[in-house]
């Protein structure tokens, strides 16, 4: 069995409650940090752990923390990003539902490290049940003296609040999130200044994903070096992967980074193989924004190596033949799924969710949606496929926030790897309304390229 750090006690009855969580060793990290470590020591441990942001971008958490500006007399904030809206991703909801105190404990340790005395957890508004769960957990922790004034007699004060969003994917982008938390529309800010200098209420702010924050608990308990022993290269520790689509066992799995993708998909410990005994056609490995890969490229890199669940291995080959670990939203497509239809669906999502500030994103996502709708419904031309590539290139890199890239990549990668399926929709417009292109050659082994 693989090591678990976040979900160790997930099956213990009552682990949602403070009492049981505490019996299982919960809040030891708070005790250790507040009683034996300085805030800088905590930052140092997180640096040593090699932990990288679990929200999608994979930026080293300890380094991000060390950038936080500390002007005298100005409050600093920690804001937890629990907006979780990237299609395919449902790990944060799982963690908050089943083991909410792991997040609360992580928030206390992290807030202490950053010198924040007020911290917020921004939860997407649709997760009202999780908001209630977190509020209850906060009340319990406060009751037990782990929140509020002079925590454990250390002289450190912390108040923790939960903030609901309003149903807008863009508010997962950290500066849009801060705007939203200030009671405004979720329009991303132009950077610089970065939140580390000017974030919430123009004060220095760190925004971290739920899982990143929860991971600080085992890091403080066992030490950063222990954490760094798990994993491969610069992919240290464990990662929550939310697996969905056409698999036998959809759900949230904690893996040690470095697990082979093939094992993750086919082993009974994880996804349990493709549902209905079908064959694998494609995978979106890290949430809808990352490039889609056909079966042959997700299982092996172009060099012929086994593809591993790490930041580096999934990205091997760049965007020509690789993808990204992203948020860990692992979406599996069986042989009967239509890549064109899915691409159209994803593009509709990005069009719907674009905040509308930048014209390349606002207009470009709309164009792509329309053109993809046309191709999917059998009215496309070959030139439409090139038009899609052209529009996607004009969005990429030309917007204030990365939502534009996130919208461009799925389209560009689908055409890169599944061009013949798009062409078939053009040449067989009628037929494409009644049957799918199928697996075709997408699982055929590729000649390794040195």
């Amino acid at each position, binding site marked *: 069995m693989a090591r678990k750090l976040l979900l160790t006690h997930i099956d213990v009855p009552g682990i949602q409650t403070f009492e049981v969580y505490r019996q299982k060793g919960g809040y030891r990290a708070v005790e250790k940090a507040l009683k034996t470590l300085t805030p800088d020591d905590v930052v140092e441990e997180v640096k040593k752990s090699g932990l990288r942001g679990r929200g999608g971008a994979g930026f080293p958490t300890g380094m991000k923390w060390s950038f936080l500006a500390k002007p005298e007399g100005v409050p600093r904030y920690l804001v937890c990003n629990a907006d979780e809206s990237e299609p395919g991703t449902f790990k944060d909801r799982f963690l908050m539902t089943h083991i909410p105190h792991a997040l609360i404990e992580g928030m206390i340790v992290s807030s202490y490290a950053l010198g924040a005395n007020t911290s917020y957890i921004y939860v997407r508004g649709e997760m*009202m049940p999780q908001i209630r769960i977190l509020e209850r957990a906060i009340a319990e922790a406060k009751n037990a003296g782990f929140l509020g004034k002079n925590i454990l007699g250390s002289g450190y004060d912390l108040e923790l609040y939960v903030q609901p969003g309003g149903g807008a994917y863009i508010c997962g982008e950290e500066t849009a999130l801060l705007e939203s938390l200030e009671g405004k529309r979720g329009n991303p800010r132009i950077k610089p200044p970065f939140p580390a200098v000017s974030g919430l209420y123009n004060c220095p702010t760190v925004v971290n994903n739920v899982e990143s924050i929860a991971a600080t608990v085992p890091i403080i308990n066992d030490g950063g070096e222990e954490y760094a022993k798990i994993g491969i290269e610069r992919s240290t520790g464990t990662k929550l992967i939310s697996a969905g689509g056409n698999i036998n066992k*959809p759900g949230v799995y904690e893996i040690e980074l470095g697990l082979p993708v093939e094992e993750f998909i086919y082993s009974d410990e994880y996804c349990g193989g493709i549902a209905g005994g079908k064959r694998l056609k494609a995978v979106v490995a890290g949430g809808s924004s990352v490039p889609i890969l056909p079966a042959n490229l997700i299982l092996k890199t172009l060099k012929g190596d086994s593809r591993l669940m790490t930041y580096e291995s999934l990205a091997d080959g760049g965007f020509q033949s690789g993808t990204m670990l992203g948020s860990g939203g692992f979406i599996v497509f069986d042989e009967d799924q239509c890549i064109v239809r*899915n691409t159209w669906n994803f593009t509709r999502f990005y069009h719907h969710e674009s905040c509308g500030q930048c014209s390349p994103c606002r207009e470009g996502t709309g164009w792509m949606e329309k053109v993809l709708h046309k191709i999917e419904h059998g009215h496309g031309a070959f030139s439409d496929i090139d038009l899609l590539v052209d529009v996607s290139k004009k969005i990429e890199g030309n917007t204030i926030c990365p939502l534009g890239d996130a919208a461009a990549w799925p389209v560009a990668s689908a055409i890169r790897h599944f061009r013949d399926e798009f062409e078939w929709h053009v040449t067989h417009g009628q037929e494409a309304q009644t049957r799918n292109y199928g697996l075709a050659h997408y699982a055929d082994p590729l000649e390794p390229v040195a």
Partner: protein
Amino acid sequence: MLSVKENEPVVFTDEMLGKFAEIVARYPEGRQKSALLPILHEVQAQYGWLSVPAMDSVAAYLELEPIEVYEVATFYTMFFLKPQGKFVLEVCRTGPCCLVGAERIMKHIETRLGVKEGEVTPDGLFSWRGVECLAACGYGPVLQIGPEYTFYENLTAESIDKLIEDLKDKAAAGSR
């Protein structure tokens, strides 16, 4: 849930005002605008949607210009700017859920309720719409119903039929 007509003035109950005050206290002095989203959720939970007079009352309470409330209410998709059915079925329509049959489920709901997306059934009980990924992709198809945002997972035609009947019973019990 209280009902409110389009132009009816909205006066918040003491209970609601108590909640609002609790929310405002979470933010630093002078940053009460941060309370806007949580308060709009409270108001929608109370009335089922956000009427203009309701938004104006929120603006007055938070000392904001009404436009500051409107521009937020129109940006976020969770807020309803016109009356809805008593139960709004919000079905995830995004890729991962479509891989496991969300489109069929939406068709079934449309047929079963006999109204198009966004419309209210003649008895005022139901409306439905497709929404984007609800972070429950492994349990799809899924739908949620506010204001508690209860989740219904692994939907089938049968489970939808049962849910609709249960909600009808619940409404009938409530009005008795």
